[in-house]
């Protein structure tokens, strides 16, 4: 998305070097030498030709090169990573795919993982590669700096960094210097020698000067290139060359003061005015210049080309010569001069730039210009005008720009604050949304009923009810009649969506799932008549997740598939698609289609990145954890748990996530075979205060652990009584899971018939919607019960039970049950058998990990699982037992 923005593309391209320049082969050669090592530096003040030299050195070194020009905006966290990846991809499109995914899948992105992945990609490729970071001085925020430091610290052999900066970068330079790993060029190296000054003034700038004049200019500018260039510009068209040089070298005035005035006065008046009036924006194109200066169409482009042609400090930013910028130093000088000479024009010029950007649809730039011009009021109006429309096409970034405006001002824009609240709530930033809503509530309470603002206060009320709602106090605050929602004006579709969502989600949180589903289905039905497309209706994801809560897998999958197919067919981007993918992934998991489920969930989590919807992240990471666990990838599952806990770590974690947050980690721990660890946790939890308050949240997890410990009576006790239905999550799966645990505990105490009855009730629950995974999760005990139940001939659901038993077999072995060793309660997976074979050859975990190209922790997890299934406690016993069972020859 960002790669197509022409303004951003200009950051990723080396600027164009004029063919007519003073070649500096000795400097280029030193840098080219440096480009064989990890890091080269060009550190010098503005106007010393750092950028030009960097580009020249790249050409001399003959390396493929990624280029990134930094600016102050890159201090925004996370942004630098995006650009780094984009810059490297411009050289090698295959690079950074995983990094891209990691970056987009998480909230917030774990920087080191992204960088680690990027460095892996770099290490895997072949051929040397240069990465230039130009204008690194603009990175001032320590956090923004971290990726650069990391890259230097872990620099792959084929990568060669070239940094250009006005000040020494905050990197361990002394260490690199001591190791001889750093080549640096500083101001003293960059100063033009007398010969170079001569070549520049006569050759490049086309002046006729004698040796004495060159020497005077070189001495007065101290070889500073920008100074020489300004002097040369002042000299052009001047008859009294000797007089100028005399005056210049004789004056006490600062060189900048002197030369700027000289340059400007040497230009035709029209050019002078143009330079000053176009000094404010960071980047310029013809149209923008015309808006700033006035003049007919094409005059702006013509003038930019004139400046470019006459060496007047402009840099071309793209191949089409569409975008330019002034040299930074020159731009600063011009801005200072503008503020000095025409302070009254500054505001007007910002306004004109803003107007032009607005007309082009670059609203973000327009808002920036308004803010820079001190017109925060207009900025707020722009945001209120364009933000909602952008949001409708799934781009909330404009609304977000309001965050940088003064809160006092925003109080005058209640509608804008409503949008912001809705965005904050959907992202889970409740701590920021609550004060906004409270202020709105107060502010709107005093509003005149005739002012047409009643619908706003109703919406605020709905949002507050939603945030306060919990299954503990379902009747806390009666909801209005749903017909009241019709008050919301038709031209505010996003806020209507917000209201519908608050209404439905409040019902759902209060435990009234069926009524919530009913309400959502009816809203959708009505909108389909008027709007047609499912994907345009914001309530669809809520209905899909409510179907899932009700346990209606087929209905949920059908809704998701229709929605996603339509989005795919139209090739559009819809913010809510990620929620649908998450629900579909959840259904696929229950159906034991693990590969497809993993892909769908990862897609959904990634698609949610620009949006940051907390529910999509929460349910997505939860489901992903279970999918990876079911696949035996415990390391991956633990990573997902880390992400889940990080994302849900705040004080205002959604009620829906509170239960899973308590137990997710230990569930993976138990599944990976760490029973002692899980048992310790269970002992500790049972003594905790949290357990007394939230018993139901711990119920199933605790029962699973006690069952694995063989403490059957305890399991029965834990599961007795009627628990509160969980506020979120699949109710049918939850019921089956709980019943299977109970059945296993009862069977463990020898009450087979009673256990059969419970398993049979699970089959009744499971068959219509095709639940499979929940049985697989219950593992060996469930399998044994199913086998025994089938043998007894007492099941009315024999066909479904047999289908379940087949699912217990590892893929590829479904048709050869003979390969299952009779003595094993739970079969080894293919991967586990592979690991076991390697263990039998005497390899260490590290060696096995290396051979199978996975992390050592993964092998440890596999081993733990193998030991558990074989009921042994070490490697030697495992091999012996496997031979005995015929798994190993």
């Amino acid at each position, binding site marked *: 998305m960002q790669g197509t923005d022409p303004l951003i593309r200009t950051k990723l391209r080396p600027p164009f070097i004029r063919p007519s320049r003073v070649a500096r082969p000795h400097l280029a050669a030193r840098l080219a030498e440096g480009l064989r090592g990890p890091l080269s530096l060009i550190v010098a003040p*503005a106007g010393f030709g750092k950028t030009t030299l960097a580009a020249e050195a790249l050409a001399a070194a003959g390396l493929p090169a990624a280029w990134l020009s930094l600016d102050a905006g890159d201090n925004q966290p996370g942004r630098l990573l995006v650009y780094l990846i984009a810059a490297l991809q411009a050289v090698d499109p295959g690079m950074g795919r995983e990094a891209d995914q990691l970056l987009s899948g998480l909230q917030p992105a774990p920087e080191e993982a992204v960088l680690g992945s990027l460095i892996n990609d770099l290490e895997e490729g072949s051929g040397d590669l240069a990465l230039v970071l130009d204008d690194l001085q603009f990175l001032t925020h320590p956090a923004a700096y971290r990726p650069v430091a990391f890259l230097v610290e872990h620099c792959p052999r084929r990568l060669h960094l070239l940094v250009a900066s006005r000040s020494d970068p905050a990197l361990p330079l002394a260490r690199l210097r001591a190791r001889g790993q750093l080549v640096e060029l500083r101001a003293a190296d960059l100063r033009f020698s007398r010969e170079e000054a001569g070549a520049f003034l006569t050759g490049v700038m086309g002046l006729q000067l004698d040796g004495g004049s060159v020497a005077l200019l070189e001495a007065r500018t101290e070889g500073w290139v920008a100074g020489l260039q300004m002097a040369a510009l002042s000299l052009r068209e001047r008859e009294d060359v000797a007089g100028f040089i005399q005056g210049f070298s004789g004056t006490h005035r600062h060189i900048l003061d002197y030369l700027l005035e000289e340059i400007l006065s040497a230009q035709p008046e029209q050019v002078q005015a143009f330079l000053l009036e176009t000094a404010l924006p960071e980047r310029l194109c013809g149209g923008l210049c015309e808006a700033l200066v006035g003049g007919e169409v094409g005059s702006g482009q013509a003038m930019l080309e004139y400046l470019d042609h006459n060496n007047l400090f402009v840099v071309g930013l793209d191949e089409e010569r569409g975008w330019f910028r002034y040299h930074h130093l020159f731009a600063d000088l011009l801005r200072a001069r503008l503020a000095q000479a025409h302070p009254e024009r500054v505001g007007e010029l910002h306004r004109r730039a803003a107007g032009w950007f607005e007309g082009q649809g670059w609203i973000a730039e327009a808002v920036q210009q308004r803010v820079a011009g001190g017109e925060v009021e207009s900025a707020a109006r722009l945001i209120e005008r364009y933000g909602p429309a952008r949001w409708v096409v799934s781009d909330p970034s404009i609304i977000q720009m309001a965050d940088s405006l003064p809160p006092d001002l925003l109080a005058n824009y209640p509608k804008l604050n409503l949008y912001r609240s809705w965005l904050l709530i959907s992202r889970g930033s409740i701590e920021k949304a609550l004060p906004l809503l409270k202020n709105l509530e107060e502010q709107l309470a005093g509003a005149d009923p005739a002012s047409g603002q009643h619908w706003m206060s109703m919406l605020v009320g709905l949002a507050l009810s939603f945030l306060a709602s919990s299954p503990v106090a379902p009747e806390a605050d009666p909801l209005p009649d749903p017909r009241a929602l019709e008050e919301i004006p038709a031209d505010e579709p996003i806020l209507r969506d917000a209201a519908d969502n608050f209404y439905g989600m409040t019902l759902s949180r209060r435990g009234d799932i069926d009524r919530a589903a009913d309400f959502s289905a009816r809203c959708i039905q009505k909108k389909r008549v008027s709007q047609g497309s499912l994907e345009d209706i914001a309530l669809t994801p809520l209905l899909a997740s409510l179907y899932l809560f009700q346990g209606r897998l087929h209905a949920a999958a059908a809704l998701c598939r229709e929605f996603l197919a339509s989005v795919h067919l139209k090739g559009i981007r819809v913010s809510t698609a990620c929620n649908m993918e998450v629900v579909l992934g959840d259904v696929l998991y229950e159906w034991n289609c693990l590969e497809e489920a993993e892909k769908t969930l990862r897609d959904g989590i990634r698609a949610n990145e620009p949006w940051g919807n907390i529910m999509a992240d929460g349910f997505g990471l939860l489901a992903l954890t279970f999918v990876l666990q079911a696949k035996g990838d415990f390391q991956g599952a633990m990573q997902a748990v880390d992400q889940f806990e990080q994302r849900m770590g705040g004080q205002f974690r959604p009620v829906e996530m509170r239960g899973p947050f308590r137990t997710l980690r230990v569930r993976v721990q138990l599944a990976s075979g760490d029973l002692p660890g899980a048992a310790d946790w269970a002992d500790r939890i049972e003594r905790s205060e949290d357990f007394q308050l939230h018993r139901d949240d711990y119920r199933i997890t605790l029962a699973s652990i006690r069952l694995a410990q063989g403490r059957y009576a305890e399991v029965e006790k834990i599961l007795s009584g009627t628990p509160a239905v969980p506020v979120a999550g699949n109710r049918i799966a939850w019921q089956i899971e709980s019943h299977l645990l109970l059945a296993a505990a009862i069977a463990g105490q020898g009450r087979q018939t009673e256990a059969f009855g419970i398993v049979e009730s699970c089959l009744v629950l499971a068959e219509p919607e095709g639940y499979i995974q929940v049985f697989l999760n219950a593992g060996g005990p469930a399998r044994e019960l199913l086998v025994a139940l089938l043998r007894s001939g007492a099941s009315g659901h024999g066909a479904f039970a047999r289908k379940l038993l087949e699912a217990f077999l590892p893929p590829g072995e479904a048709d050869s049950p003979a390969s299952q060793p009779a003595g094993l309660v739970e079969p080894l997976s293919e991967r586990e058998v592979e690991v076991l074979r390697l263990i039998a050859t005497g390899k260490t975990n590290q060696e096995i990990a290396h051979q199978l190209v996975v992390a050592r922790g993964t092998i440890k997890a596999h081993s733990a699982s193998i030991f558990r299934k074989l009921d042994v406690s070490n490697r030697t016993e495992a091999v012996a037992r496997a031979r005995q069972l015929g798994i190993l020859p």
Partner: protein
Amino acid sequence: MPEFYEIKIQGRLDPGWSEWFSGLQLSHLEGDETLLSGWLADQAALHGLLERIRDLNLTLISVNRV
């Protein structure tokens, strides 16, 4: 906490630059130096000012809090 600063740079800058340097007063010293003096709101303002001096390739001689 605003503090009063005196910043010495090399070369003679016209007083017209005052606006560009956070409104500090510019005065010429002997030996081709310029003194920027005045109140700065905090450390961030000071650093911003020093960055401007760097960005214009001015030679910084001294910074004093008075």
